[in-house]
């Protein structure tokens, strides 16, 4: 993590936080940037993962003129003391308590309809100081404080955001990672790593991003070209430079008589963080009928010992990766792209789309997914 400004601590002997690189003076027991315990040496496993240093109970972080205190160890609470003029944003279901005078406003988000379809929070709330406001999630885990320097960005898996200071810009992008399966005449799309991923960027000033992960958190620095297979929902965050792909393994070597393992294939350079408690990917076991993006290494002979394997490489942070579509989907997508007015389909055209889809043997659900796809690609069919 980039270093913080050392100017404010020039009066005492200083050291740097092993976790985030912030400057710490000798009187402090925890890092003012990320709350990591100072006296604790960095714990690294033999396999190269560094364990997130636990944030000491009641550790205090400084964020501009405001502070944030981390309270508790099992389900930690982030208790912000917002100065006048400072604000944080959050998804409304993580709010624990607040002072009466703290004002909460709705934060405008683009693409609310698409977010709703993707199961992402539609309403982001913004709390304005002065006053106290506290956040927590409802599962045991660890709080991750990520101080972001100006210009620095990080990609976070959906639903892990706890709160961020308002100078951290929030956008999201299409992961481009999916598999499809067939149920009768309907095609279903599955997104093992989530349909979208959050991207947080500190603009002109440094900011603070707080995440909550289930269980313990481990971070690893991948060298350029170094690869790793992780379970898709174990991912917490990654640098933009880390590219993602899907990898499907059939341990018996035969698709028709094997369970399958769905992996997220990560390739460096950059940092990757994982959580030890994660929700398993729902896989109903139906035959996979399509993959996102061209897959030249789909049946890589080098992986013959692990059964047949599918690798779907996706360029780092590329929401516009080309997607191979069923020709029927392609026709409906072209129709939808032509009919789209300001990112939406007018009701009359929607009816025509549904009729055309029915003639193609596609369902209303397929049409909704196709519209989502076109919307997320700026009104283009592919």
């Amino acid at each position, binding site marked *: 993590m980039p270093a913080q400004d050392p100017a404010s601590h020039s009066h005492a002997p200083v050291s740097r936080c092993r976790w985030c690189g912030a400057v710490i003076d000798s009187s402090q027991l925890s890092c003012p940037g990320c709350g990591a315990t100072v006296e604790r040496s960095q*714990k690294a*496993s*033999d*396999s190269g*993962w560094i*364990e997130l240093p636990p944030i000491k109970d009641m550790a205090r972080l400084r964020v501009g003129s405001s502070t944030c205190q981390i309270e508790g160890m*099992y389900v930690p609470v982030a208790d912000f003391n917002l100065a006048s003029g400072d604000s944080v944003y959050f998804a409304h279901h993580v709010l624990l308590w607040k002072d009466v005078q703290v004002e909460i406003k709705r934060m405008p988000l683009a693409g609310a309809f698409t977010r709703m379809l993707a199961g992402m929070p539609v309403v982001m709330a913004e709390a304005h100081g002065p006053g106290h406001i506290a956040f927590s999630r409802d599962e*045991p*885990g*660890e709080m991750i404080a990520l101080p972001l320097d100006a210009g620095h960005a990080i990609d976070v898996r959906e639903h892990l955001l706890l709160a961020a200071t308002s100078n951290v810009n929030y956008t999201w992008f299409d992961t481009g990672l999916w598999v499809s399966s067939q149920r009768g005449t309907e095609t279903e799309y599955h997104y093992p790593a989530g349909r979208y991923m959050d991207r947080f960027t500190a603009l002109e000033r440094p900011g603070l991003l707080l995440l909550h992960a*289930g*269980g*313990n958190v*481990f971070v690893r620095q991948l060298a350029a070209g170094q*690869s*790793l*297979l*992780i*379970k898709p929902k*174990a991912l917490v965050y990654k640098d933009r430079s880390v590219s993602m792909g899907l990898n499907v*393994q059939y*341990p*018996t*070597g035969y698709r028709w008589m*094997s*369970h399958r*393992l769905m992996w997220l294939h990560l390739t460096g350079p950059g940092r990757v963080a*994982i*959580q*030890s*408690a*994660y*929700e*398993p990917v729902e896989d109903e076991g139906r035959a996979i009928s399509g993959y996102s993006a061209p897959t030249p290494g789909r049946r890589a002979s080098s992986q013959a*010992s*692990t*059964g047949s394997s599918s690798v779907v490489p996706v360029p780092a942070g590329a929401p516009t990766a080309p997607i191979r579509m069923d020709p029927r989907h392609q026709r409906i997508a072209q129709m939808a792209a032509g009919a789209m007015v300001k990112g939406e389909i007018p009701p009359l055209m929607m009816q025509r789309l549904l009729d055309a889809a029915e003639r193609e043997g596609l369902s209303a659900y397929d049409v909704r997914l196709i519209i989502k796809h076109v919307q997320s690609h700026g009104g283009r069919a592919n």
Partner: protein
Amino acid sequence: MGPEQRIVCQWCRGQNLPGAVSCRSCGAPLDVRNTVSDSGWAAAPRLKDMTEFQFSHSTCQVEGEIVPVADVMLGPGDSVFFEHHVLLWQDPAISLAAMPLGGAIKRMLAGMPFAVTQAHGPGHVAFSRDATGELVVLPLHPGMELDVREHAFLLASHSIQYSFIRIKGFFNILFGGEGMFMDRFVTAGESGLLMLHGYGNVFQRTLKAGECILVEPGGFLYKDATVTMNVEMQRTGAGLLGGAGMALARMTGPGRVGIQSMYKHHKSS
């Protein structure tokens, strides 16, 4: 070096060299006294973060304390088996294969894992479950048989034979909280390593021959094969119709019984 100079682990009875701070077979801290309650339950050793221990030509490192991870460095020729949903990450060099199991249809019908996967070294592979709890490391010496509640095992080394036993008695099946089958792990000629994930905290008690205790079926985690388990109904009312009742598992020694403090996990129920 004489045996008097060795440190014996109070959890697994493994022998360790003088100066060791954690057991090389199970990772239990050697510098901490075994915690035993007045009622005779020994707390499973709280494995220190980043503790490492050995089995065969491989090592296992336990990482984290809330939802601990078992990070296994498999040596060449070594392998471990596991239920596929506990995988967390792996080196691309690790090869996975399905482990042949008998009675797949019965197991599938009973809701047990019928697809057990084997990871072959060399390389790193890591496992974790999706709930707060403890890792229980049980080095199995030759000739041992251990019964474990279904879905509780995290991994086992290749030298351990894995099978299942049918729980007898309609009442046991209905009210035992186990379903129809229980996992059985047996070591033949070679020692092996079995790791379980217990929800909450894990406690173990050794029963003498004929000694009985009653355990809430959801709290049961493992037992030696010598311990018998029968579910019985305890009457809690004295009304005309007998009142309500609750099912409890009667465990009869000799042997070890392990329980977990957080009852059956809601996601596996």
